[in-house]
């Protein structure tokens, strides 16, 4: 039996959705983009162009929810199927868009470079329990205007996993789409086999900026999956109660569904989010707070109730280093998320309120993910009944180490974590250098970087991608790209 954890009754979910719909129809949403407002107006929404305010109708909400698909599939760079985001399927993806990294060699918290990004993408290739990559941090050695497209370019070049990403500007979307077209070969092929998910964030409370609303529309036009990342902050930019925060999250996310589905009925969308409790003592947004994680799981139940694939920023920590807090917050979040059935669980590698990525933490989190993925496979009998034959064998042979039953089910029943998790007896641990988890993670990083193999994308595709990226970089005064010198 697949274990499932629930926080909300259907009655409460229906009430939350009902209240959110009332807010959308009576208080409305601000959208700072006239093209989007016109489009909404054309579909019968009541628009105040002066105030940039739109009031939806129940019809529009029903129609767009009806049009939204109940699953999102993803395919890797080589075109292999990797994700089916639906039901209680669970996949992990690293926390995205950090501004800092924790240097695995010096221990310094600093701005990341292209070289760091390339290492990250190579490392991600070897972390088996994290099914997609994200554009995890922002290389600071290229102009900001290309930092979004360049990180996607680097990801596609150095790791074959599908990419969770996002555009920082309206213009950047084009090259980010063109890079994907280069990989797939045509618009039809890209629609058939989505390669990326674009995160699009409304602004709390109840607002879409020019850029993010346009990104939604542009993604929809090309059938590129989007995840809505609503971020209510309980007690600050949202009601203090968990239910109140979920009402706001539901309203903001539904407004995103409306924008996408009116633009292109049937375009893939994910009911995502990065809500947070607000810690008024420190004026921070703790991602590792249990209340944050409860809101995430509640939102997931609402998304499932609406038959949409779900996502949340939940398996991450607010610690600054790879310490016990990093492990406990990430483990708790990952466990709850998987038990709740959040389809795309974001967070691994992330520290410091989504602002610092760590390769060491990614390696450790990969093991958290491995254990959690085992957990949700639950307990099932496997040739265990009748029980007598195996016990007869045990009593006769004195052990079952090489029994057929053992050989058949050893790897299926038991997840064996990598070297980063210490399971040696204490003598062996001492013999092998009394290493801490940080030491072991550093060794594992070097091992995985050593084992990395270049992409098998054909040369003409790589050339096309490079031409596209260079053209984009040239617009901002760069005639060479930093990765070429690595």
């Amino acid at each position, binding site marked *: 039996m697949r274990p499932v954890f629930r926080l909300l009754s259907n009655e409460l979910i229906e009430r939350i959705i009902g209240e959110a719909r009332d807010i959308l129809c009576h208080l409305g949403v601000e959208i700072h983009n006239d093209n989007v407002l016109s489009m909404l107006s054309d579909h019968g929404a009541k628009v105040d162009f002066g105030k940039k305010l739109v009031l939806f109708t129940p019809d529009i909400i029903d129609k767009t929810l009806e049009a939204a698909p109940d699953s999102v599939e993803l395919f890797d760079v080589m075109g292999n199927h990797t994700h089916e985001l639906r039901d209680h399927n669970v996949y992990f993806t690293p926390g995205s868009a950090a501004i800092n990294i924790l240097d695995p060699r010096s221990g310094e918290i600093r701005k990341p470079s292209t070289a760091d990004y390339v290492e990250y993408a190579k490392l991600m290739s070897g972390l088996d329990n994290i099914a997609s990559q994200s554009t995890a941090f922002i290389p600071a050695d290229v102009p900001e205007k290309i930092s979004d497209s360049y990180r996607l370019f680097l990801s596609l070049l150095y790791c074959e996993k599908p990419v969770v990403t996002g555009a920082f500007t309206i213009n950047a979307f084009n090259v980010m789409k063109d890079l994907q077209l280069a990989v797939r070969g045509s618009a039809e092929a890209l629609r058939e086999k989505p390669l990326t998910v674009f995160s699009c964030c409304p602004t709390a409370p109840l607002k879409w900026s020019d850029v993010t609303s346009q990104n939604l529309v542009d993604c929809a036009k090309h059938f590129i999956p989007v995840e809505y990342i609503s971020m209510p902050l309980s007690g600050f930019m949202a009601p203090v109660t968990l239910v109140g925060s979920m009402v706001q999250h539901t309203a903001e996310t539904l407004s995103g569904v409306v924008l996408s589905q009116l633009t292109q009925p049937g375009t893939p969308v994910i009911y995502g989010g990065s809500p947070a409790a607000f810690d008024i003592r420190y004026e921070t947004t703790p991602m590792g707070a249990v209340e944050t994680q409860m809101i995430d799981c509640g939102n997931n139940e609402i998304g499932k109730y609406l038959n949409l694939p779900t996502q949340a920023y939940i398996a991450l920590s607010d610690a600054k280093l790879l310490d016990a807090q990093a492990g406990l917050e990430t483990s708790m979040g990952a466990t709850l998320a998987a038990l709740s059935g959040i389809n795309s669980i974001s967070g691994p590698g992330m520290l410091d309120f989504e602002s610092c990525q760590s390769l060491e933490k990614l390696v450790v989190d990969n093991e958290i993910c491995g254990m959690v993925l085992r957990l949700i496979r639950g307990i099932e009998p496997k040739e265990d009944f009748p029980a007598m034959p195996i016990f007869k064998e045990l009593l006769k042979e004195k052990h079952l180490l*090489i029994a057929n039953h053992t050989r058949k089910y050893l790897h299926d029943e038991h997840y064996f974590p990598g070297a980063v998790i210490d399971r040696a007896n204490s003598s062996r641990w001492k013999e092998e250098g009394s290493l801490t988890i940080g030491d072991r993670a550093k060794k594992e990083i070097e091992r995985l970087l050593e084992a990395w193999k270049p992409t098998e994308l054909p040369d003409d595709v790589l050339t096309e991608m490079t031409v596209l990226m260079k053209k984009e970089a040239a617009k901002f005064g760069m005639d060479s790209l930093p990765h070429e010198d690595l």
Partner: protein
Amino acid sequence: MELLKQISFNLQNGFDEAVAELTKEAVEKQIPPDEIMNNGLIAGMNIVGEKFKNHEIFLPDVLLAARAMNRAMEVLKPLLIKDGIPVRGKVVIGSVKDDLHDIGKNLVAILLKGAGFEVIDLGNDVPAEKFISVAAEENAHVIGMSALLTTTMPVMKKVVDMAKDEGLYGKVKIMVGGAPVSKEFAKEIGADAYSYDGANAVETIESFFREDS
């Protein structure tokens, strides 16, 4: 040479039937038995040991390789003895007196057999005198003792002391293991070595033979 590589390959994959057949074939083709043992079986077992240590394969894989090794040794052993070639080494092993815990000791015995050693398993609750008398009678190369209880650890020292009295000390290597036992304890009582687990015990004993040769 190709045949010995095949033996090694099949052994690594635990195909005991194939290893036995190929070993017979090698004997028929007049390949010297010690060459079959060293360049086929032990070569394969060394790769298995290395992979096991690096967590590339797990205990069941080692044991399956060990089973294949044993099948081949059934074919080779009479020939080796006839040629006066010593078998790989003889280990007398047991859990010490008053200690009824033998899971760790059994695992060590299984792995040693797999690595081609001859193992005389005295079981559990073994008095010091028994270790000494059997080691002397059997011309054993190694005495291996295991303890889980701190209360039974003094038996290990008694064995070392008796080995000294009987003139075995230095000729027979004495090694100890078990949860409460440590490298420091081994040194303190005058044992030759301590191993922290089964695979480590095999490595340690192999290192004794390298020292000798």
